[in-house]
């Protein structure tokens, strides 16, 4: 049986409780044992690294040390920002022994050993669990549901930190969504920044950036947007009405966690998905799921393109 050590992050019992809960039931269906940490602290998110150098490393380092106390299994993090901070800290600690000694003096719980891998939840599901295992558990395929997979910035960037999927046009979440029976739409804005932690201090910016993401998702014909980060979900969902008002256009696009989709497809009851916690009502998406696979789209005959003949052909 696969095991992982789970770092919940600050939003897991509040803003993203539905993500935490559906993650647990989904991983259980996938025969993955979730080991909780005895204690953890805030990773520092954006604020710590914006304002400080050493505190920004100390906060994640304590979490890495606490995870090592649980086991050598991978440390899996559901929030993309927390994941990015923990992974970046791990890379610094692994590559710079003097820095590691210095920062470790601030953590009284123990010494960093570097024995634990750090992965985002999406990465773990895609790499460690795998698409085949996910497909096996699908009992109620999400046929007919058109999903725009939104990755945001930190699941696949910076490249040298995430080292996962593509920084430009990732497909891991898309593949999971397709394995669940739904259709992942071609979504140009899948890795465009939503404005992240400026949600409170620079709300107009978030309204602008997140607004563009919603606009492109709508153009792509998405019924819903799937996310794998509480910050992304919060901006796209909680700010959607504000964005609609500022743009004078309706979106009505529910923003759901990939684990909610997985839980639904794995046959868990709808009540377990905690859809009522969404600000933009998510229940309507259930009505878009068909009872049978959608008809194959009529294949359009390709128009013969005029191709310039090569020099050899013309001679």
């Amino acid at each position: 049986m696969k095991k992982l050590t789970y770092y919940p992050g600050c939003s897991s019992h509040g803003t993203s409780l539905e993500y935490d809960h559906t993650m647990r039931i989904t991983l259980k269906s996938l025969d993955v044992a979730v080991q909780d940490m005895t204690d953890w602290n805030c990773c520092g998110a954006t604020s710590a690294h914006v304002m400080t150098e050493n505190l920004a490393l100390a906060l994640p380092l304590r979490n890495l040390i606490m995870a090592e106390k649980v086991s050598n299994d991978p440390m899996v993090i559901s929030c993309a920002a927390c994941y990015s901070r923990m992974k970046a800290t791990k890379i610094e600690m692994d590559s710079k022994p003097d820095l590691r000694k210095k920062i470790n003096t601030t953590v009284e719980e123990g010494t960093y050993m570097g024995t634990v891998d750090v992965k985002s939840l999406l990465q773990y599901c895609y790499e460690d669990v795998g698409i085949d295992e996910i497909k096996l558990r699908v009992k109620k395929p999400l046929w007919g549901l058109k999903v725009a997979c939104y990755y945001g910035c930190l699941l696949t960037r910076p490249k040298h930190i995430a080292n996962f999927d593509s920084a430009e046009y990732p497909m891991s979440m898309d593949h999971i969504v397709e394995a669940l029976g739904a259709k992942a739409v071609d979504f140009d804005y899948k890795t465009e920044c939503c404005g992240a932690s400026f949600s409170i201090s620079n709300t107009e910016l978030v309204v602008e950036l997140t607004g563009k993401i919603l606009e492109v998702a709508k153009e792509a014909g998405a019924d819903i947007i799937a996310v794998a980060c509480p910050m992304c979900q919060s901006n796209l969902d909680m700010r959607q009405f504000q964005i609609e008002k500022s743009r004078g256009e309706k979106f009505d696009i529910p923003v759901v966690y990939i684990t909610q989709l997985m839980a639904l497809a794995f046959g868990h009851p709808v009540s377990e998905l905690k859809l009522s916690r969404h600000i933009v009502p998510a229940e309507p998406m259930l009505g878009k799921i068909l009872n049978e696979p959608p008809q194959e789209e009529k294949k359009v005959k390709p128009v013969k393109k005029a191709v310039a003949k090569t020099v050899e052909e013309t001679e």
Partner: protein
Amino acid sequence: MIKLNNLHHNPFLEAVNKKSGADVLDCYQCGKCVATCPVSSHMDITPRQIMQYIKLNQKTQVYMANSTWFCLTCSSCSARCPREIEIPSVMEACRHLAIEENVYPNSPKVKEIKRFHEIFIDMVKKYGKLYELRMMAEYNIRSGNFFKDIALAPAALFKGKLKLFPEKSKNMKAIDKMFKMAEELDKVKV
């Protein structure tokens, strides 16, 4: 006036390179970062210009711009930079140097951003974890905008998105010690 004959000694470039781990001299000013950056149109000076200012030892121009404060650290720029320069690290290095020298832009927006970060860190110092409700309340009070996001409050509280009471780390003594030691190392009280 920029004295070009002094550029064999560029302490700003050295400091930024050391802090960021990047080499700003790699930049050949293609501008791809500016085209990609979601907030470049909001910046006083663009990432490309920042690289050039660093090469010309113009730290005040960089410190006084809102650019490093508006940087989202989204890494869109570095994903596309043909020289693979870690531009977010360069922006961060410039910002940290400015904080060390206690130089901040006059922009009211930057003051808001700085205020938010300070309150966030303060919450983590007090609770070990982020107490979102108190953070938002303190931010509203300190920024004088008491009713900001008040429309979101009923839905957020009712749906349990904002917890009424904080959850603390189990070992607050360890958190206190960490903050004290880290502040010593940072030499800057946040």
